[in-house]
């Protein structure tokens, strides 16, 4: 029986600063939850409170029905059986890969522990490096050892703090896949703290955006991407155009590049219009008061920088012919990628 981990009303202060300010989050079994936010948003502190490395100033953490942290109660990290993976790997430098993995298997006999540790190292693809010391391993290999070490003692959950950002991009993909496959196989709740939106969306089933100690939106990556609750959330998940708009006579919000639909309850005159670059459609027909300034390839699309009356707009297009620098184009927007918020 695998239990969820639930945090309720968690608060953590350092001196005058409130780092985590009333967070509720549930980590479900067989679910990877990504915690996304800028540095200083309180992600790591939240993770450390769930792990039992820090004592919350208020709030509770529980595993299923079993309380872990709460008023007058603090199950220490060493008794929680929650696996941890760090950005800096945190391998014991004086132990071989095998001994690192065996460290959490103290209850077993030596031979059983070694067999299980070796089995885990084989599973993460390090069957031939059992006797290597951390300094003899590459960064990717070190992180694989850390993953095996965290999972070998059958933890009730696994928490990962920026687990892949210490790795070269070329290694990251492999290690990430190995890690997520291992975690999914075990079926325990997993939390991954990240500041890389693309990575978080790729890995997570469930996602929470954190800002200044609070979770400002929680949902599936798709939900958050397609219906952000604020400009900040929209910007957290990728490049956006941030335009000013005003309500016109037809019930539309007019921007420098054309109108978008107003929110259902249009209560104010001025709006902030967030538009994803892939939602910007360019064509030669119609009103053409916008000029393409420059075009460059970014990955699998072309990014065009468009100017209209001194305002700049980024558009992503798969078709290089429609985006020639110097040409004038008309701009319209795919409503799915446009988000209109009342201006503050």
């Amino acid at each position, binding site marked *: 029986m695998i239990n969820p981990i639930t945090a309720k009303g968690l608060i953590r202060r350092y001196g005058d600063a409130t780092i985590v300010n009333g967070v509720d989050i549930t980590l479900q079994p067989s679910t990877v939850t990504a915690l996304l936010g800028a540095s200083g948003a309180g992600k790591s502190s939240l993770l450390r409170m769930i792990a039992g490395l820090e004592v919350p100033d208020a709030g509770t953490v529980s595993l299923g029905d079993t309380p872990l942290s709460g008023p007058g109660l603090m199950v220490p*990290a060493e*008794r929680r059986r929650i696996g941890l993976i760090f950005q800096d790997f945190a391998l014991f430098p004086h132990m071989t890969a095998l001994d690192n993995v065996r*460290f959490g298997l103290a209850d077993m006999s030596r031979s059983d522990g070694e067999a299980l540790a070796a089995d885990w190292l084989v599973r993460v693809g390090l069957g031939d490096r059992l006797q290597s010391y951390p300094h*003899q391993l590459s960064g990717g290999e070190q992180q694989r050892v850390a993953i095996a070490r965290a999972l070998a003692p059958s933890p009730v959950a696994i928490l990962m703090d920026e687990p892949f950002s210490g790795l070269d991009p070329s290694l990251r993909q492999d290690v990430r896949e190995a890690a997520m496959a291992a975690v999914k196989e075990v079926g325990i709740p997993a939390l991954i703290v990240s500041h890389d939106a693309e990575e978080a969306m790729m890995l997570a089933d469930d996602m929470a955006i954190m800002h200044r100690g609070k979770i400002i939106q929680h949902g599936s990556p798709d939900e958050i991407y397609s219906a952000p609750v604020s400009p900040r959330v929209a910007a957290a998940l990728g490049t956006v155009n941030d335009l000013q708009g005003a309500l016109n006579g037809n019930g539309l919000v007019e921007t420098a590049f054309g109108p978008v639909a107003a929110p259902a309850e249009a209560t104010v005159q001025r709006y902030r219009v967030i538009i994803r670059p892939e939602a910007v459609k360019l064509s030669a027909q119609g009103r053409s008061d916008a000029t393409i300034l420059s075009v460059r390839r970014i990955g699998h699309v072309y990014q065009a920088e468009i100017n209209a009356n001194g305002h700049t707009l980024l558009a992503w297009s798969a078709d290089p012919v429609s985006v020639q620098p110097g040409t004038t184009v008309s701009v319209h927007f795919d409503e799915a990628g446009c988000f209109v918020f009342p201006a503050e």
Partner: protein
Amino acid sequence: MTAPAGTDTSLQSRRAVVGRVLKTLVSPGDVFLWAAILLVGLPLISTVFIGVFAGGGSTWNHITDTFFWTYLTSSVTVLAGVAALILIIAVPAAWLVTLYDFPGRALFSWLLILPLAAPGYVIAFAYADLFGVVGPIQTTIRDMTGLAARDYWFPDIRSSWGCAFVLAAALYPYVYLSARAAFTTQSVCTLEVAQSLGASPWQRFTRVALPGARPAIVAGLALALMEAAADYGAADFLGVQTLTVGVFRAWSSFSDPAAGARLALILVALALTLLWVERTRRGEAGYQASSIRWRALRRTRLSGWTAYLATAFCCLIFVWGFAAPILRLAWLAVDARAATPPLLDPLFNSFLLAFAGSVAAFFTALAFALGTRKKHFVSKFAGWIAAGGYATPGAVLALGGVYALNVLPFTLTGTAALMVLVLVYVSRFTAAGVGPLESALERAPASLNAAARSLGASSLRRIRQVDLPVILPGAAAAGLILFVEILKELPATLMLRPFNLDTLAVRAYAYASDERLETAALPSLVIVLCGLLPVIVLSWRLSTGRAGGDVE
């Protein structure tokens, strides 16, 4: 809830601020740190205090009338000579060993740090004998030419320049090591860029590597000059009247430690200036190289005569700094004329003092290393106090103790003197232990402990299986460094040791001063042998302690 920042100027919040500041200053964990700061700072502060308030009088007037300019010019000449020699020797050597391959390179890369094992006075004994009128070199010249000693010119080792020659031989590794570290960490990217832009090897050295490494080189040089200024044994033995010799003489010849303390004020100012230079440059040098991605240097292979020239250059430095003086002492020691001096008693005394001093200094250093992990101004202050003690000559630190013992109703035979001597050791050498201890503690970052906890390890098991094994090698290295530094220490030991408690250093110095160099050779060699231990540990750590391993 907390009030928004900037709105609270009430008395209450000000009280809260004061309370917080007090809490930072006197939190229970910091009691040890404050005790350590007091211990380390006491000798230096008392010497300065005595120098300022009690240093005047007839002896001081006598010194200013007679020796003062001699002291000053000798010190300046020695320091200038040491600086020039070290820069000419150590920087090119570090460059060659780091970036080129030539016969013997791997061997030289660590042979060249061996002089760290030998104190300056031991090197001075050897060169006084080698270059003396009856020494092997001049004898050979006379035998070959048939000239008499008066008929030819030979450089006088018993001069300011001779002293600089000797001290530079003993101290160049400070610059060699810091330059090598700087070249190693900077060179990969910048040098390859320079090469791609068409810079010749000489241009890469002068225009890219040297400017980049300059802060580190200057920092290393400042350390070497601190040691040179602190030297008493070599200068006094060679008859060079430096300020440090003057400070010692004020006590030994004039029995006026207060006048010595006033003279010492110049040395303290010099030491603090060098310390300031060292610290600010070290900061600029950006010593935290990226630890995760470390790329091995590709060395250029030298061929033909350039390769032999490089080998010869390194060989010459090694002979100068270590091989010639140490082999000469060994020769003297086994020479039939030498009476074997009693070795057991001074060895025992040396070990006793070094043990007592290093245990005390170790725990003081531990208090510093643990106390300064929190970054606030106390830790900065603590760092300066420790470094201030390290930078100040032992003779200067001992003066405060001597003065106190003269004023207080104790005699130099008592345990009081012994305790004061240990205190001076603590003050002088604690800083040497703080560095290794800090890096040992850094090897056990918080995440390591957290990982162990998440794997269910109890606090006892964490200490036994994680913290101790990780920290122990560094702690042992710190202890070893402290032990050997104290074993080599001469002036403070001379001034404060209880009557008849002769250490190896004191004995060797006494024999040498009596012109019994053959007899001084054996205790000197024992000191060098002990000194080799931490040097070997250091070089081993340098070659194996890199992140990512040394892939070649």
